């Protein structure tokens, strides 16, 4: 069969062959055609069978545009790598034709673009669906690609591993390190999304809000999880969530900074007092005498500028303590009673 290039040249002898090849592939790229159409273009332009192999498949198209059985390439044929393990070739036996190299180059370029476009898979669709920078249309399109139900959704934040069994999920780089985002239907028990044996700590985002908001609240909730409380729902934080969200962007609040400046034992003592509601119970938990706890508490109240036993002071301490946890200032694995949420940065923060 006479190659298309020859026929096109007969129609329009003035335009260069390079231009025709380029415009042919440009038109295919503009319309995002599939691999087979790309190969067909190269096959008819070159007048030879053209092949393609990636990690999934081998495709060959004959010079008349008909797809033929897969067969591996011969060493002698001109070929071009498109990516790792991905290659296209022209099944030219004997001398290469003048335009083979150019056709192969344009084919490889076009296939590379198409492959990049199509590799927008589940992971990036999840990322797009929860991104505050994506438009509502983009997010809706991403959700459609994920084929999630129309009902209300919630985003759950968890450590990168393990992944949930069935739900759309992706590892997302956040300013607090790599975190897994999972989109679940509202009302589903978030723990049920993971196999029972390896459910990680979960921060459950708000329901009934756009997904980017659900995601940002889930990130806060996840950082507040602990061994004692492995699942934290943002909705349970109440108005504290507003404080937490606000603190995300600003400089550290002085109350949090004051707690950060304390030694481990002091913080332990304050936690015990806040948790036990009385100095006596706190002293029992700490295994210390209650009068020494009382004494220490008086000193600490002076340092902090408020008494965590008083109603306002209790609220102040609780918020400051939350902000301290969120800030990630605490040193890991000290003391053992306070366990950092495992979603907190593993590598350095940005």
């Amino acid at each position, binding site marked *: 069969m*006479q190659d*298309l290039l020859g*026929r*096109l040249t*007969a*129609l*329009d002898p003035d*335009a260069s062959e390079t231009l*025709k*090849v380029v*415009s*042919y*592939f*440009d*038109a*295919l790229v*503009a*319309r*995002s*055609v599939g691999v*087979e*159409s790309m190969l*067909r*273009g190269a*096959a*008819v332009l070159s007048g030879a069978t053209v092949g393609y192999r990636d990690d999934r498949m081998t495709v060959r198209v004959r*010079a*008349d*545009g*008909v797809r033929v059985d897969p067969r591996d390439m011969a060493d002698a044929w001109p070929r071009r790598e498109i990516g790792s393990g991905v290659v296209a070739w022209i099944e030219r036996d004997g001398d290469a034709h003048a335009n083979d190299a150019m056709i192969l180059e344009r084919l490889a370029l076009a296939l590379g673009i198409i492959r990049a476009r199509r590799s927008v898979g589940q992971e990036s669709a999840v990322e797009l669906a929860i991104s505050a920078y994506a438009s509502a249309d983009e997010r809706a399109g991403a959700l459609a690609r994920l084929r999630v139900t129309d009902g209300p959704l919630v985003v759950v934040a968890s450590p990168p591993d393990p992944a949930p069994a069935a739900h759309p999920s992706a590892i997302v780089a956040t300013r607090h390190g790599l975190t897994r985002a999972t989109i679940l239907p509202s009302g589903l028990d978030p723990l049920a999304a993971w196999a029972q044996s390896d459910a990680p700590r979960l921060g459950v985002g708000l329901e009934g809000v756009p997904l980017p908001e659900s995601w940002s609240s889930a990130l806060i909730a996840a950082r507040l999880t602990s061994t004692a409380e492995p699942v934290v729902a943002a909705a349970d934080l109440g108005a504290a969530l507003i404080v937490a969200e606000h603190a995300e962007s600003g400089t550290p609040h002085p109350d949090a900074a004051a707690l950060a400046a304390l030694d481990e034992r002091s913080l332990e003592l304050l936690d015990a007092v806040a948790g036990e509601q009385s100095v006596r119970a706190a002293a029992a938990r700490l295994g210390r005498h209650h009068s020494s706890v009382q004494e220490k508490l008086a000193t600490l109240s002076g340092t902090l500028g408020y008494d965590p036993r008083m109603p306002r002071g209790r609220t102040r301490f609780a918020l400051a303590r939350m902000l301290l946890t969120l800030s990630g200032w605490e040193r890991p694995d000290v003391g053992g009673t306070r366990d950092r949420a495992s979603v907190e940065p593993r590598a350095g923060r940005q």
Partner: protein
Amino acid sequence: MTDTIARPPFDPEIEAALSATGGFPSLTLDMIPVLRGAPMMAGPDPREVLAERGFTVEDVTITGYEDAEIVVSVIAKAGRTGIGPGIFHTHGGGMILGDRWAGVTQFIDWAERYNGVIVTVEYRLAPEFPDPFPVEDCYAGLVWTAANAEQLGIDPSRLVIGGASAGGGLAAGTALLARDRRGPALAGQVLICPMLDDRDLTLSTAQIDGIGVWDRTSNITGWTALLGDRRGTDEVSIYAAPARAADLTGLPPAYIDCGSAEVFRDEDVSYAMRLWEAGVQAELHVWAGGFHGFEMFAPHAALSQAAAAARDSWVNRLLGA
């Protein structure tokens, strides 16, 4: 207005082929002499293809309209014996271009498969020979073919007429003439993206204006060459513009195809619907994103392969058995 009208997009593969050629111009009457000097369709010479496939060609001079001499070519496999179907071919070219070889290779598979004979007619072209010259020359060729069926080895009960574009319109018009004059019986009519309507009133003609292949301007040029001042008036016969035929009863089974993005779409779809209304068997295929003549333009494209396969299937059902 025409700038903003919505239309179906072209199929990507055929669009790529079109863009690689720099597009297809809108034809005007003054361009006809130049166009006749150039090949209408890029591709191998049909006569070479026929020779390669082992077909022989015999040119016969016959009597055309008003007793003028015209030529038909009889095409059959070398050394053919016995009888088989006859395929009477009316070529395309907008009534103004092309010769009897244009598009004839679309039919050689069938001739080969069924031991058939192709007769292709060199009808005279507009504007030098306006209506009714083209369709009457075609009819004369059909009458000659039927009259010589025995000698040509054609089974008279399996005589099919077919053509593309203007050739599709001429095939439909010739079939109407054969019905109304009680002429040769036809077993089928293959109307490939046929040009049927001179009136320029459809939505599809408005959609394909200045784009694609054989756009509105080109179409008006073709019809004006054929009909002159009569174009769009009540003076146009149903044989020139079969879309005008009010009565389609008694016509042979029809195969009609076209692209969704061509001027002829609406007139072709409408013709199929009215054939059904008239109780005539018809099969219609509208190929998504096809511009006019996409199969000849980009035979490699998936769309073209599908269109050829569908037509092949119909002919197999008609002639196979």
